[in-house]
């Protein structure tokens, strides 16, 4: 792996000062090492914390919020040490838990206002910002309704609103699309993108869904059984490979035979083929094959790795055989 940097060498991600850094961060519960020497950097923008259930994502979030003490290693969040300055960290960070955490018999407006006040907003400001933030997440009309009557999607929006009400520098979103139907999921991911791009708030999103991560994040930290298996920007992680991807309009046996006759070894079947990119002349050979056999070329490009491949190689699984792992 050339682009996915190992945990001992934090990735040179996007430009900008680091929001979060950890070095050798370890958390053990008895004999279980939930986090095992994690060293990572989170830079401005949207960073995804990707890993299967039990990979250590929630443990890392708790350590970053200063809610649990690390067994070893150190962390810095917005230049504060969460172990000794947890209160300072939590005043500047918003938190969206994975689990249900909303009081059913409260009005959304009252609840978000109260969360603003406990995070330091003056009472009058908290009222105004609660209204504004609920409007930003699409609950302007419903803000005086009791939360217990909300749909799952609306509740997730209230959770996002309470995480934003005090205008944090960084928001930690723990599985924000959990329990949502496809439409609700898309809307939540759009909201997350708006938080980053329009509101200018940095996001660290924890997820086990590759598609979610790929849709919203600029950078990815891959956690596997407590280790940082890979990290870097999406561009780095999904870099080109030494293959050429050929997509035909329709299957053509003569085309394949021509490539073999020219010394190439096409892999795949049907309309999608891959050949090794030994030198740039491979592109000319493919072009000639199409011309000679009359095959229609739909696409010809240098192959790139998918996030799924990055995930599987990072976790040491064989991409060809694995069917489990993080959700696709």
């Amino acid at each position: 792996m050339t682009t996915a940097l190992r945990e001992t060498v934090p990735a040179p991600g996007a430009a900008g000062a680091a929001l979060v850094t950890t070095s050798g961060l370890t958390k053990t519960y008895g004999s279980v090492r939930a986090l095992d020497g994690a060293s990572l950097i989170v830079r401005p923008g949207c960073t995804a914390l990707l890993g299967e259930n039990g990979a250590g994502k929630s443990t890392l979030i708790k350590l970053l919020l200063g809610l649990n003490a690390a067994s070893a290693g150190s962390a810095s969040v917005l230049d504060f040490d969460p172990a000794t300055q947890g209160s300072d960290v939590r005043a500047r960070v918003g938190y969206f838990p994975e689990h249900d955490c909303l009081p059913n018999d409260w009005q959304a407006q009252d609840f978000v206002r109260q969360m603003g006040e406990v995070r330091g907003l003056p009472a009058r400001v908290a009222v105004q910002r609660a209204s504004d933030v609920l409007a930003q997440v699409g609950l302007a009309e419903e803000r005086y309704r009791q939360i217990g009557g909300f749909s799952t999607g609306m509740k997730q929006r209230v959770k996002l609103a309470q995480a934003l009400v005090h205008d944090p520098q960084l928001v930690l979103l723990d599985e924000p699309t959990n329990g949502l139907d496809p439409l609700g999921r898309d809307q939540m991911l759009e909201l997350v993108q708006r938080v980053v791009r329009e509101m200018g708030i940095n996001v660290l999103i924890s997820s086990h869904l590759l598609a979610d991560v790929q849709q919203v994040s600029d950078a990815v930290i891959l956690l596997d059984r407590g280790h940082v298996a890979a990290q870097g920007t999406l561009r780095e992680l999904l870099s080109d490979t030494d293959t050429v991807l050929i997509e035909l309009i329709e299957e053509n046996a003569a085309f394949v035979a021509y490539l073999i006759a020219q010394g190439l070894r096409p892999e795949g079947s049907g309309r999608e083929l891959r050949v090794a990119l030994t030198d740039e002349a491979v592109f000319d050979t493919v072009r000639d094959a199409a011309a000679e056999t009359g095959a229609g070329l739909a696409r010809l490009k240098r192959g790139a790795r998918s996030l799924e491949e990055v995930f599987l190689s990072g976790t040491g699984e064989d991409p060809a055989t694995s069917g489990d792992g993080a959700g696709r």
Partner: protein
Amino acid sequence: MTAQEGAAGARIVDRGYQHYGGERRGIASALRSITVGTMKRSLGFKRPGSAKVFPFLLVAASFLPFIIVTGLRLLIGDNISRRVPADQIWPYQRYFTWLGLAVLLLAALAASEALCPDRRQRVLSLYYASPVPPLLYLLGQALAVTIVLTLVALLPPFLLWAANVGLAQNPGVYLQAHWDEGPRILAGGVLLALLNSALGLAVAAFTERKGYAAGALIGGVVVASVVAGIANNAIKAGGAKYAVLIDPLLVGPNTARWILGVHLDTRVQGPIWLGMEVAMIAVCAVLVVRVYRSLAF
């Protein structure tokens, strides 16, 4: 979403997200927010109508003697009774006995409302993820319950005392003779509120369900009261007289009566009642703190 009408009729319908660069307050402000929020909810504000009924009835019941006595004195004058002076129609010690049950029932409602929903609905995780330390959250809830109970345990007898001063034929002379009753009522009321608040919170800390917490508190007090009564009457051993000290319905009012300087018709001395009340409050406080320290985030 905001809409501002301009001079030419132009409207801003969406300002977009606004960053906040103004004042940020410390944990004292957060503590006030938690306390005020729980006080309001304990009394039924911003809650469905059914949640307002019991708090309203209990508060009304606690003020009833004050309203009746003061109302009669205002309407009829001081000749309500030939045998009892007007300011002794409803003595303060009787008021505290009357209030004992009302404060206990309100404690069952307020303490369970303060602690149980936040744990059951896991809102606690959001408070813990804020700058508010867990013990400060607990302090805010305890303050809220105690203030609500103080409203019932202190205000009615204190207002009755103030009315007795104000309606006396010569208020200045009456106040000179009875000034010490004010602070005594204050001390008795606050202690009664503290005791019931501590008991209610200690019970509520052990369950996530409001109904269980309220039921356990009321049931526990009833059982303790019955056991204390049986032990006190049935056991002839010398130490059996102290069995009454486990009855919370006696501890608060009797301490208040002793503070008021009234002779106690029990075999246990006043300072022992006070000591028991302080011990109960301390034990409950330690219990609540221990339970919340053990709660995982």
